[in-house]
């Protein structure tokens, strides 16, 4: 409605198409093409092949795929539990402590991931808690980095839940725990799923803290992609990138299919 002439509109839309195409579509397309290419000497790749995908799914890379997914699941589950618990607990606090703690729960996402990794190294490299070189430290690093997002998502969902539902439930005789299980949690289920999905996606792509703390044998996909491209095996790196994108999207899709029976407003 800003531009009234047809030629003006066509011009602007063409401009947008070029902009979005160059900035967003081209990179994705390039990685897609590179993952299938056997050789890339000229402008475009040549000799399409699936061998990069095969090597990406087996051996070291296959192990990294497994490690990423397991880490994602563990860290996201833990983050969902802690994030939901915090969001619920904060509701019953008076204003000032609530705002301070709200800030405290968000800060882990404001801090650079490398520093989080460094902190874990420094803190847990000696007794009594020795986690350096274990898989647990990777789980913890991912958990810390994504906890703020689960907390934020669940908080937003709780804020949008009309207090009527919980109050009516209470008036009908539901004690707090019964109300939590049968009314509150089912009604914020869409937000819980969204929080888990976002956390999982972030964990799959996490690099900064992982690269500081990962033990040999538990490299994740991002670490693997870096090692490959650093070595010059860019096509296999591209194939792993595609696997990363695809596996993330697939799991997100599956999560979005969970029936929630709560009509989204």
């Amino acid at each position, binding site marked *: 409605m800003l531009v009234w002439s047809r030629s003006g509109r066509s011009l602007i839309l063409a401009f947008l198409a070029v902009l979005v195409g160059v900035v967003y579509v081209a990179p994705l397309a390039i990685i897609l093409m590179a993952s299938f290419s056997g050789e890339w000497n000229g402008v475009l790749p040549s000799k399409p092949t699936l061998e990069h995908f095969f090597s990406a799914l087996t051996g070291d890379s296959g192990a990294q795929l497994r490690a990423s997914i397991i880490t994602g699941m563990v860290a996201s589950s833990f983050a969902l539990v802690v994030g939901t618990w915090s969001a619920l607990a904060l509701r019953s606090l008076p204003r000032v402590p609530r705002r301070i703690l709200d800030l405290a729960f968000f800060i882990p996402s404001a801090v650079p991931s490398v520093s989080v990794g460094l902190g874990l190294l420094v803190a847990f490299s000696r007794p009594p808690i020795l986690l350096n070189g274990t898989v647990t430290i990777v789980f913890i690093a991912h958990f810390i980095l994504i906890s703020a997002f689960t907390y934020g998502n669940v908080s937003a969902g709780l804020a949008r839940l*009309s207090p*009527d539902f919980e*109050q*009516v439930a209470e*008036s*009908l*005789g539901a004690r707090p725990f019964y109300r939590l299980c*049968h*009314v509150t949690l089912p009604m914020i289920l869409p937000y819980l799923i969204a929080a888990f999905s976002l956390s999982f996606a972030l964990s799959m792509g996490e690099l900064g803290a992982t690269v500081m703390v990962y033990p040999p044998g538990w490299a994740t996909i991002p670490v693997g992609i870096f090692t490959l491209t650093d070595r010059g095996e860019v096509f296999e790196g591209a194939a792993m990138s595609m696997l990363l994108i695809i596996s993330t999207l697939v799991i997100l899709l599956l999560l979005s299919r969970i029936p929630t*029976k709560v009509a989204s407003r």
Partner: protein
Amino acid sequence: MSIDVAIDGAASAAPSIVSDVTQSGEGIIFEGVTVAYRGHVVLEDFSLDVRIGEIMALIGPSGSGKTTALRAVAGFVQPTKGRIKIGNQDVTDLPPYARGIGMVVQNYALFPHMRIEDNVAFGLRARNAPREKIEQRVTECLRLVGMSKYVGRYPRELSGGQQQRIAVARALAVEPRVLLLDEPLSALDAQIRRQMVDEIAKLHRDLPGLTVLYVTHDQTEALTLADRIAIMHDGKLSSLGPSQSLYRQPPNRFTAEFLGRANLLPVRVEATDGATGLLRVNFAGATLHVSNDPNAKTGTDQLICIRPHSLHFAEPEAPGNRLRGVVKDVQWQGDHHAITLDCGGTTLRVVTKPLRDRLDRGVSLDLTFQPDDATLIAAST
């Protein structure tokens, strides 16, 4: 004092299906309840006695404290001072789930992730009632509100009126001692609302022992449904009484103006007429006779309240009260005409059957009213 509910004859003649599950309710007592938030007083020294089995309507403008009073009974608002009792039990410090209440809110708040039957069964399940009892109560309460067909549906498949009926069934399923209705019809269309008012009235007849506290800003609902009305203003109880008494003889100015429209004429009290027993007052030079009020002091300035439909066109030469006014505005509103007149500086509003002949502005008219239809009100309330 037994409840004297004015149901028109036709309805009471038809046999009503009284629920075979007896509801033995209890009364509600507010004792000097004060509620304040951060220095702002929302309810002040509020005392009220809601009797067993009556429908008490709490009405008032926004901010009058009526919703706060209801939520204090439910337990979602803590009184800063005062106690609340249900029956003989002081519930002020009890959590909501231990008070034995049933609540219906404006937006129904049916649990969207549960079917209708699970919604209605919710309270009983939460209290660990045995399975047979739950099934029996659910069936019974759905039948009571006429929604038995919808047992397996989800709330989103129902209309607003239907959802509200389920909300009522859900509240009744737990056999509450008192039923709290917080503007239950405000979210419904006008037509559905009228229907629901009838249904609530029928429900009250079917469950004679159930005490109901009904908060609304709609006077028609209050006048139709309530046995007694409590009018609230600025956090305080302004007047209390049976609906008809409050309407016909409002005790104060706020009640007169809030409950229905009122014409308020400033008058000076003269004397009681020995012959007729009526009170003589002087309005802008004219002498009027109104119903006697023992509290009226001679020589004081008061107001008399006359409802718009109590003013009629006066026949020429007819005896009785006579007011002369100049027509300022005439509005036809379908089933009545609303005429605004200026009478000695006071604006009067008259509601009549639709006029056949045109009435022009500037015309002088004589109005009359029955002495019984005028109530004396203290000028300063």
